[in-house]
């Protein structure tokens, strides 16, 4: 969720609320501290209030996960939920620190505070990354696709590239291309099996099918040693195509060794590689955009469970 620019007006009131609520809580606690010479503990009136409100906020924060699971219920707008999640989450930290009376206490309360700190910090980290990583991705990864489908799409890309090379190099003729239709002799037909529930089918597109071109042996070798490994394994391969500069140079060198009619299929292969390289970058950026959730989400659940244990123990041994 973006905070800056034109988005800020939607966050301004929330931010103001958090600042005012935090200041009010501190003032209340400080007023008690001035009397008693110690920050009020969890069982004092302010401490108990802070704990109750902070605990309630944590429960609400976890409800965001539930809200995402039942999107169809439309319990409020997702943006409103997320805004509340962000700002109330930030508010919960000072409230719960005040609830603790600035003491870590025993093992359970120490673990709770540690979890709270990690959850809040990871949330802030995630929020910060979301301010610029998506824009950066938009600028740098024009071939962006759905993250979870990158591996599947890469395999498709590899198959298309292989068919293209086979046709150009004369290993098979255009009539033998899988999925060819009526105009198979004139077009290279590519497509993917798509499914929606039980309905499965092929979505096809066609490109002009090249004829077999003589003198394309370097292309076949290049495909086998560089293109195919890169399309299949991406940056994990040892292909020179991982690096944009070296890839461009390699394709230029190869073009010099191929007859002119083979340049267009070669450019198609280069496009495939560029696309794959962008997907690799997208995977990397996507990892950084979402890896904070590896901490934020699991530890939030642990925090929630232990919070209830803490509340139970605190009420039992009040």
């Amino acid at each position, binding site marked *: 969720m973006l905070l800056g620019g034109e988005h800020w007006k939607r966050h301004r009131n929330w931010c103001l609320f958090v600042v005012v609520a935090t200041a009010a809580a501190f003032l209340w606690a400080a007023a008690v501290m001035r009397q008693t010479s110690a920050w009020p503990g969890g069982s004092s009136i302010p401490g108990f209030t802070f704990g109750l409100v902070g605990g309630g906020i944590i429960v609400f924060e976890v409800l965001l996960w539930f809200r995402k699971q039942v999107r169809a219920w439309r319990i409020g707008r997702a943006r409103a939920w997320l805004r509340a999640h962000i700002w109330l989450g930030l508010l919960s930290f000072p409230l719960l620190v005040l609830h603790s009376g600035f*003491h870590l206490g025993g093992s*359970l309360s120490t673990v709770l505070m540690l979890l709270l700190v990690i959850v809040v910090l990871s949330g802030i980290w995630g929020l910060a990354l979301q301010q610029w990583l998506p824009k950066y991705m938009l600028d740098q990864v024009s071939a962006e*696709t759905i993250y979870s489908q990158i591996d599947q*799409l890469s395999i498709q890309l590899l198959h298309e590239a292989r068919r293209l090379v086979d046709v150009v190099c004369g290993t098979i003729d255009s009539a033998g291309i899988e999925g060819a239709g009526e105009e198979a002799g004139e077009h290279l037909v590519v497509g993917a099996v798509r499914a929606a529930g039980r309905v499965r089918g092929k979505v096809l597109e066609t490109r002009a099918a090249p004829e077999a071109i003589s003198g394309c042996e370097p292309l076949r070798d290049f495909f086998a040693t560089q293109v195919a490994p890169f399309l299949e394994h991406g940056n994990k391969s040892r292909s020179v195509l991982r690096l944009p500069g070296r890839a461009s140079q390699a394709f230029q060198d190869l073009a010099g060794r191929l007859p002119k009619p083979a340049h267009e299929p070669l450019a198609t292969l280069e496009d495939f590689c560029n696309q794959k390289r962008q997907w690799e970058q997208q995977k990397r950026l996507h990892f950084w955009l979402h890896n904070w959730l590896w901490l934020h989400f699991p530890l939030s659940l642990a925090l929630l469970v232990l919070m209830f244990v803490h509340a139970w123990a605190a*009420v039992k041994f*009040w």
Partner: protein
Amino acid sequence: MPHETGKQRASKIPLDYFRHASPLDRWRLWLAIIALAATLAWIGWAVVNGKAAQLRYSPGPLAEAHALWDDQCEACHIPFQPIKATNLPLVARGTRPADERCRNCHAGAPHHAMSIAVPDSCADCHHEHAGRNASLVRMPDFTCVQCHANLAEHSTVKTLYKNVERFDLNHHPEFSLIREKAADPGHLKFNHQLHMSPGMHVAGKADPGWTLAKLAPSDRGRYRLAGQRDTDRVVLECGSCHRIASASGNTLSGGADPGSGHMQPVTYENDCRACHPLSVEAARGDQPSIEIVHGQSPAVVHRRLTEDYLGRYLAEQDSILDARVESMPLPGKLSPDKTLPVRNVINARVLAAEKTLYQGQQSCALCHELKPTGGIELVEALTLGQAPRFDIVKTAVPAVWFRSAKFNHTAHRSMQCRDCHAGAYADSPAASTHSSDVMIPGIANCVQCHGPPSAQAGGARYDCTECHRYHGREANPGLSHFDIESFISGSSLKNAAKVDSP
């Protein structure tokens, strides 16, 4: 430029792609499962381990005194009943059932009978779980001044005490000893100025004063200052008589608590005897003097002297032992005019000794007040053949002067005595010459150090509990006694309180 448009790429994506989790999603799910499993395992371990695991719920370690029950919450807590009363408005004010568990060992005396019950429960003031070294009796001033800042509203009767807001000249009354110009109730004659003068020498007198040579050889070392010879005057210092009571080695009396930093009470045997020996000379010079035990009543001393002189007389008159005494002496055989009864001899010697003891230069009356009995004058109190008809008024020098506050001399041992007790020094303009003088300094002396750090004060502690305790010094009534096993387990504390649990 990419080979494909976004639309073309989208056409290759299955429409139900969202049903399949990405690797990142799968990782997140597994980590969530692991985190939940670890959390539940910890809770399960805590449940299985029972008491030992309760420590994990604790908001912090107990103070050293209670460390025994660190993992036994119910030694003090009653489940689902607040241990304190004042913090939450949901809880009715008043003594909490859990207080009974405290009172098993700490049956603290009430503060003031006339005070309106604030605070209510033990835990309202004594905050536990603040760490091993936390003090359970060092309360914030708020706990005191919530009442003492406005005593009229917190007392059931009209109080004579002044309101206190904090410790300084303007918000704390002068110490009552100073305010009421109290006199020493000790019934002991003592002149600090004289005793603190070298050799107890009085200006203008030819007497060179009290020299070390006048002390018994065994006492000279104690009073000899560095470089002094036997012909030099005895120079007393504060420490010659006043010593801080320690927890070890001293048998204390008079209310001074060992280890509390109180001054040890001054006693005759320890501090007076060297210069004021209690002995009377024998009837003959070749006999040892008679040592009188300090603290005995005049009647006992009289009997002792009579017995002693009688014994010595019999020892001197050997012939009496050889005289033949008829069992039935004939009347008129011995003429009373020609002989003196032995009783008279003995009585005369006893009377002389008593005059030395009670009326001489080194007499008891030098320090003690003598109170005649039977409505006679003191001069008539000593008569031949009779026990003295007076009592020695029992001394009552307070071992602890502050009635409501505590003062620790050990904590102040780095300070010179003169800064607080200038009157004890012979060269002081306000030197004390009367035993009724009270040389306790006032509040102005304390605030030089005890106040907020500033140009006027040194920054030493000045909170209420630095000097005061809430509960009285009365003995604890109704303390319970437990066997070791039940005491350690805390079960005895718990059971003892059950009777009061609602």
